[in-house]
């Protein structure tokens, strides 16, 4: 890109494309000076501080709750309990994106340790804590279910006795619940998997287990809320989904959308944990009751019980026929969604259908379940359930390759889908890139072709190295909608208004790049208007690697609208028909007559009779859609707007005497369609991989009888600099997507998808043991090396 001096004014022309340039981030200066404000950095005059009392039980009846003494605490302006909420008129006391299963404050029973039971707003945090300590609660503990496989047994205690579907998703409307803890079941049937497995010469059958884990965004959730004298609610919140929060608050308070304003300041990491309603219902209710601004910032312990990654058990069966063909896959995946469904049913559906992997296999049978337990509610976690199933289907590719004496990379390349193939769901595939990513990663890691030949028996001494590769394919959450407004001022400066949340991924920069490119103005004249639902249009959410594609297209549609207006004005001014005009490089030109043109400045001057400070506004709404899915077979002509594929390759070192695993080298590859900002793409690929490395090797939320025992960063350890592989490379593949802006797709999650199985495959290559559960503890590796069958006996 040419750097254009600012004094050249509105005539700034761009001759080179800014798309594809790794320009400096637009949010850079605020972020390196400490000037970027997050919710906890905001305050209002007279603001109260909120705090909540949380359940100490995983499942109990609330037999008595009395806040009389708490209300007497000086400075405590409001103390609310579940029964209090029920008595407030005009309030909908339950919420949730799939089912309205989550009470603002617990009513009658509590369903997980940490559930909010009472809330206080007080002048100071000390007064709030004092008041909470005086709320008297009596619980009658009930049998609780903690394990996802226990929860599906008929005799398991029910977490919810009925379900009330939210109106958000049509396919959930018929679900009533009450019979079991399974709140959603997705089925995919293609061919006859049972028959094929019966005929197979070899059937691999394994459970792959992933635990709940903490998103561990460093910024705890926070909300500040205020109602004005007209009854309008303004909420500053750490959310990835301002439009959904606005809609939900409008539902809870039964007020029109325009009476709820949701503003998102800078967001200090989210990874899926800050979607849908989190602290907003309680905070806004306290603000309403007290008629004062209220701010609630979680502490780290509270973050741990607010959301988590779905623990999952993925039961994978793969059949290999006599001729060495993979003839069937049967998959049952159980997502542990904890006490509230949140978006779990969507994960079971949208990820469940990819559970057999991106491979041409004739007979596929998938059951994907979303299951309640009495644990921390689970939500999407960077990858939206794909890492849990990719761990299983990729591990089985390695097992099959080993059985057949084949090169695991080559086997994957043989079976992996190609452009134009039909996915197991009957959906035609376009713009994949998983195979190219795999080939690239294998090359970079120094993959030696041929079957793996791990030492046998496993070595007892020393350190051994091994390499592993894996791929994965994810379908973007569909349908969804993104809206954008692009405003140009008479000086040629541009504002881009979107509800896409800048949470580190670089969306502010990328969206401004697109506006700069389209409007033909230099990047330094483009600015972002960050989410404020009073001015920024609806966007489904910032998650699932969807923003570049969806919001990128919305910005393009908005700039198209703006360009159209320029042409309309120029047509009037130049007395040339609109068809003869085109908008190029920041000006309107008559086609084929390069000398006849109007600059932006001239267009504004004509339209507004020379008035300065005037603006023109374009808007765009981009929507994606799906074709109906058959309920029994899971078949659909169109299940997703786009696919994004990627691969990971790892070289590990296993200490055969301690069982520790160190990732020495790592390569991550992702097909991004088109890299609008290549450095951001690289950062997404490796950032996702580093997080997943922690999830693979040590991160887990440890529950004992429903109690979380590592609810602090002193006990829940994150990947640190010492864990980052010494050799770390990212590789961008570009298979343009016909609908993406400049062909771009998403990349935020790709690095998570194939990383677990790449590491476990490398461990197999190094020492010849198969891993079926993460995190991979040193003891589990050592026991496997010593031939312990894992049943807990001492070898």
């Amino acid at each position, binding site marked *: 890109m040419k750097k254009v001096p600012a004094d050249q004014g509105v005539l700034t022309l761009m001759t080179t494309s800014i798309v594809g340039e790794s320009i400096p981030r637009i949010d850079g200066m605020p972020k390196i000076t400490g000037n970027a404000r997050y919710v906890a950095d905001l305050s209002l005059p007279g603001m109260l501080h909120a705090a909540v009392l949380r359940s100490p039980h995983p499942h109990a009846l609330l037999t008595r709750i009395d806040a009389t003494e708490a209300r007497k605490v000086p400075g405590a302006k409001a103390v609310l309990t579940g029964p209090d909420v029920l008595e407030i008129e005009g309030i909908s006391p339950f919420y949730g994106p799939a089912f309205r299963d989550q009470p603002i404050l617990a009513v009658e029973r509590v369903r997980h340790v940490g559930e909010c039971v009472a809330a206080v707003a007080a002048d100071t945090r000390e007064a709030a804590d004092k008041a909470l300590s005086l709320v008297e609660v009596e619980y009658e503990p009930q049998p609780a279910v903690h394990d996802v496989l226990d929860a599906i047994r008929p005799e398991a205690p029910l977490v919810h006795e009925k379900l009330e579907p939210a109106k958000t998703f049509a396919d959930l409307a018929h679900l009533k619940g009450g019979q079991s803890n399974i709140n959603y079941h997705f089925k995919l049937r293609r061919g006859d998997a049972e028959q094929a497995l019966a005929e197979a010469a070899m059937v691999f059958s394994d459970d792959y287990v992933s635990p709940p884990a903490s998103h561990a965004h460093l910024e705890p959730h926070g909300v500040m809320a205020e109602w004005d004298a007209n009854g309008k609610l303004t909420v500053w919140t750490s959310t990835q989904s301002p439009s959904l929060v606005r809609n939900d608050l409008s539902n809870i308070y039964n007020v029109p959308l325009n009476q709820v304003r949701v503003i998102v300041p800078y967001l200090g990491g989210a990874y899926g944990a800050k979607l849908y309603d989190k602290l907003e219902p309680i905070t806004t209710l306290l603000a309403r009751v007290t008629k004062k601004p209220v701010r609630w910032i979680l502490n780290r312990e509270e973050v741990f019980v607010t959301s988590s990654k779905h623990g999952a058990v993925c039961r994978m069966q793969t059949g290999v026929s006599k001729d060495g063909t993979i003839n069937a896959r049967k998959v049952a995946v159980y997502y542990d969604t904890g006490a509230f469904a949140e978006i779990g049913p969507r994960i079971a559906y949208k990820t469940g259908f990819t559970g057999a992997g991106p491979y041409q296999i004739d007979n596929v049978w998938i059951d994907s379940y979303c299951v309640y337990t009495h644990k921390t509610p689970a939500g999407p976690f960077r990858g939206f359930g794909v890492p849990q199933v990719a761990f299983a289907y990729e591990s089985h590719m390695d097992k099959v390759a080993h059985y057949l004496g084949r090169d695991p990379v080559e086997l994957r390349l043989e079976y992996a889908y190609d452009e134009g193939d039909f996915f197991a769901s009957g959906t035609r595939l376009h713009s994949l890139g998983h195979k190219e990513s795999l080939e690239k990663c294998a090359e970079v890691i120094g993959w030696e072709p041929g079957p793996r030949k791990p030492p046998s028996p496993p070595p007892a001494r020393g350190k051994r190295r091994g390499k592993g590769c894996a791929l994965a394919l994810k379908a973007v959450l569909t349908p969804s909608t993104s809206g954008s407004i692009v405003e140009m001022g008479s000086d040629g400066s541009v504002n881009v208004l979107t509800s896409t949340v800048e949470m580190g991924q670089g969306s502010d920069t990328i969206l401004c790049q697109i506006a700069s490119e389209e409007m033909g103005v230099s990047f330094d004249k483009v600015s972002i208007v960050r989410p404020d639902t009073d001015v920024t249009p609806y966007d489904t959410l910032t998650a699932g690697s969807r923003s570049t594609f969806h919001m990128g297209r919305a910005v393009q549609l908005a700039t198209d609208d703006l360009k159209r207006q320029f042409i309309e004005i120029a047509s009037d001014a130049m007395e040339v028909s609109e068809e003869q005009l085109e908008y190029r490089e920041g000006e309107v030109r008559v086609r084929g007559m390069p000398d006849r043109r109007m600059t932006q400045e001239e267009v504004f001057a004509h339209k507004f009779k020379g008035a300065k400070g005037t603006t023109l506004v374009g808007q765009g709404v981009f929507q994606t859609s799906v074709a109906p899915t058959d309920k029994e077979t899971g078949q659909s002509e169109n299940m997703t707007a786009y696919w994004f594929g990627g691969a990971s390759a790892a070289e590990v070192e296993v200490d055969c*005497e*301690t069982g*520790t*695993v*160190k990732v020495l080298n790592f390569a991550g590859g992702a097909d991004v369609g088109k890299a609008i900002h290549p450095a951001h793409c690289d950062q997404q690929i490796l950032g996702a991989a580093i997080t997943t490395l*922690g999830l693979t*090797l*040590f991160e887990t939320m*440890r529950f004992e009888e429903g109690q979380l025992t*590592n609810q*602090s960063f*002193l006990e829940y*350890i*994150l*990947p*640190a*600099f*010492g*864990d980052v592989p010494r050799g770390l490379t990212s590789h961008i593949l570009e298979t343009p997507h016909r609908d993406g802006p400049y062909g771009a797709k998403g990349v935020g999650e790709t690095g998570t998808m194939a990383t677990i199985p790449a590491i476990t495959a490398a461990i197999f290559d190094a020492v010849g043991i198969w891993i079926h559960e993460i*995190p*991979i*503890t*040193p*003891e589990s590796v*050592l*026991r496997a090396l010593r031939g312990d069958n894992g049943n807990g006996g*001492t070898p």
Partner: protein
Amino acid sequence: MLSDLGEEAAPIAGGTAVLILMKSGLYAPNHLINLKALGGLSEIAFDPKEGLRLGALATHREVELHPAVAGRYPVLSSTYARVANVRVRNSATVGGNLAHGDFRIDPPAPLIALNARIRLHGTGGERDLPLEDFFTGFYATAKAEGEIVTAVTMPPPTDGLKGIYLKYVGNAAADWPTLGTAVMLRMDNGTCGDLRVVLTSVAETPVKVSGLEDLAVGRELSEERIEAVADAAAAQTQPIEDHRGSAWYKREMVKVHVRRGIEALLETA
């Protein structure tokens, strides 16, 4: 003052441990007594006759970077350098760390192996005891109410005595140790002249492995001999079973790290 206020007061130095306990609600003293206001307790001094004295208020970072410590007791520098992170080391003090009695801290391993003594001051005056006797149980120490730690002392280093501290942290670099192993070894013409092994983070209190005079001293340290020492260390350890490992696993780790420690020292001998 401390003894007058009893349990209502907590002495605080670097604050990294006390403040965490207070924040968690486990501990709510009415008064914090700022030990930093006491003068003269932060000195690190070495005397060829008396040995090393670490003032209780010296920070971990000061011990880590002190030239006398690095020159005479390199194992101590390298151990203090591995405690938690640099921020903790800038705040946490030698005395506060030991007084906390946490079984997962690193310094007691090399300190005990260096025959360190801990000095306590209370209303009854001053007393001093071997550091291994200071740790009496899970988060329990011999420190009486009203007493504070004033210093840790140890004799001058013996010629030829080499030491190593192995911090074994499993798969996460920032984790607490599963096991800390300090080994001190002096070889005399191919036979073992002195061998000390101390284990931390594995049991409720540091484990000073006994019987090494009979098992190793005066003998060649053959592979079998080293195995025997490692087995003895494992047998003397009553591991805490937790998510870092079962008792079986932790004893295996004791064997591995005692062997690795001795082998590493033999290589440099």
